[in-house]
């Protein structure tokens, strides 16, 4: 293992200390009253009447989630150990700290651990703090099929879109139910798929989670270093982009986008109804130049199918430590969602419109 480390056991704590030192708009709280529960919050208090957004999950996905705390996105984030969900006490402490009286919306990625710990936290928030909580579950990863036989689709890249768009709506003063509904709408219209070239190494384990020969790739990986659905021969960027988009666009949610585009083309009215936000996301160790090579392929493929890229995001947003690889996320947007996407945001990882 080669990492910039002092002590593997202090990996998360020291990284959070750096986050706070680098970004004065954020504060890392260690709540003694909640048994040392740790969370990241905006330094500024929540505006009275504003619904608070709280997310969290295992560490190792930075900038997710701490890097998305700030105006226009999250009010607080609860980081667990590396790839381990946070514990309920962290969420309870965060809820108490950021609730302004308007309630709290949890954004939870669909992993058994995250779901169970946030569920217990939501119950505690009501029972012990009298604070109402609504939960938005993110499950966008099409690599996990057939939810009858699995824990269901994983939450991955769409989390960024949910936090941005629902966060913008909360900033406008919408009520808790509306903010949660918007989050669910974004999730329902988003799908993702990821391919890895290497495994990642957790500081606790010290060696890669799996070994991948030079000429092979893992198809359908998640963001926790677990192996993917299958292993395949390494393919070109063009083929990898096609593989991912084929999997995503085969989802019923995008049938309308493509059909609408075709109908628009036939009627001579131009492509319509197929507007998407596209995110090509690095998993941690893939250079931005390679992500742009992939985005180029994505843009050509979508143009060929009559799907219009309304907005795009290329970079490292939901990572898996030092895994080399990329994930692709498409979200079929409407005008309201696009307007909220464009709304001002000021976080360490996303910043525009200010």
């Amino acid at each position, binding site marked *: 293992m080669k990492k910039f480390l002092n002590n593997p056991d202090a990996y998360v704590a020291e990284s959070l200390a750096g986050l706070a030192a680098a970004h004065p708009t954020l504060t890392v709280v260690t709540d003694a009253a909640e048994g040392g529960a740790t969370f990241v919050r905006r330094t500024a208090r929540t505006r009275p009447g504003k619904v608070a957004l709280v997310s969290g999950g295992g560490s190792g996905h930075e900038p997710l989630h701490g890097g998305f705390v700030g105006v226009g996105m999250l009010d607080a984030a609860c980081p667990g150990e590396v790839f381990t969900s946070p514990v309920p006490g962290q969420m309870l402490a965060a809820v108490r700290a950021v609730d302004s009286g308007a309630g709290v919306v949890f954004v939870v990625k669909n992993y*058994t651990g995250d779901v169970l710990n946030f569920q217990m936290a939501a119950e505690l928030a009501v029972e012990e703090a009298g604070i109402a909580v609504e939960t938005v579950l993110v499950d966008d990863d099409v690599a996990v099929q057939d939810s009858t*036989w699995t824990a269901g689709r994983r939450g991955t890249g769409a989390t960024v879109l949910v936090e941005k768009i629902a966060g913008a709506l909360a900033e406008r003063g919408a009520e808790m139910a509306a903010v949660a509904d918007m989050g669910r709408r974004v999730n329902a219209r988003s799908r993702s798929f990821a391919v890895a070239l290497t495994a990642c190494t957790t500081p606790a384990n010290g060696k890669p989670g799996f070994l991948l020969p030079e000429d092979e790739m893992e198809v359908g990986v998640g963001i926790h270093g677990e192996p993917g659905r299958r292993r395949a021969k390494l393919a070109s960027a063009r083929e990898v982009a096609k593989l991912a988009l084929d999997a995503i666009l085969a989802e019923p949610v995008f049938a309308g986008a493509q059909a609408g585009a075709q109908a628009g083309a036939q009627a001579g009215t131009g492509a319509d109804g197929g507007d998407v936000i596209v995110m090509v996301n690095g998993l941690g160790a893939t250079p931005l130049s390679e992500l742009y090579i992939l985005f180029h392929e994505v843009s050509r493929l979508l143009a060929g199918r009559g799907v219009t890229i309304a907005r795009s995001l290329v970079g490292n947003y939901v990572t898996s430590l030092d895994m080399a690889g990329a994930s692709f996320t498409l979200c079929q947007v409407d005008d309201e969602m696009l307007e909220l996407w464009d709304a001002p945001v000021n976080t360490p990882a996303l910043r525009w419109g200010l």
Partner: protein
Amino acid sequence: MNAGDSGEGGNRVDTLDIETTRAWILATAAAVDSHRDVLTELDAAIGDADHGANMHRGFTAVAAAVGGDYAPETVGQLLGKVGMTLISSVGGASGPLYGSAFRAAGRQLATPEADGDQFALALRAALDAVRALGAAAAGDKTMVDALMPAVTTFDEAVTSGAGLRAAARAAATAADAGARATTPLQARKGRASYLGERSIGHQDPGATSTALIFAALADTLDGTLGRMP
């Protein structure tokens, strides 16, 4: 003195009092410590390689919470403390699942000592809590595959007249067999389920840690009660 005591009532000593319960929990913590790497490697194969570290963190906190000066009034209070400590320190799915299991068991044991019948009810409550929270069924390749046979076996042993110690040994054997039997299964719950058929051929880490807990119980009762002539 000892011989006289046990001679008066052989069944009477076959109970789980607060000190034996504490010894069981500390023995579990020691077993988790010595199996940390094993659990991590099992989890690396089909999960995310954190089960060893998480359980170790949890049971280290548990050992600190219930060891030494901690003086509960009932067995249930001690188990409840174990549960709350696991919920607030483990994370992952294991924290809420094991935490809820210990808490549910504890709610059934509001006495300073428990006999086999009481403990059977407590184990049943633990299993129900895990199944309610995790929604896993037998054969899904989860901790339920070790917990369910252990609970059923304990129940049957007690019903057929076995004492706590013998029932615990039978349950430990069943839990271990159940954990081993997860190897050929395809995971249908938890993170391993994302692997589909590739989860086949690996023993489930959660079932393995469950087997450790039952082995620690049987060993503790053997050690404590086994010394009685």
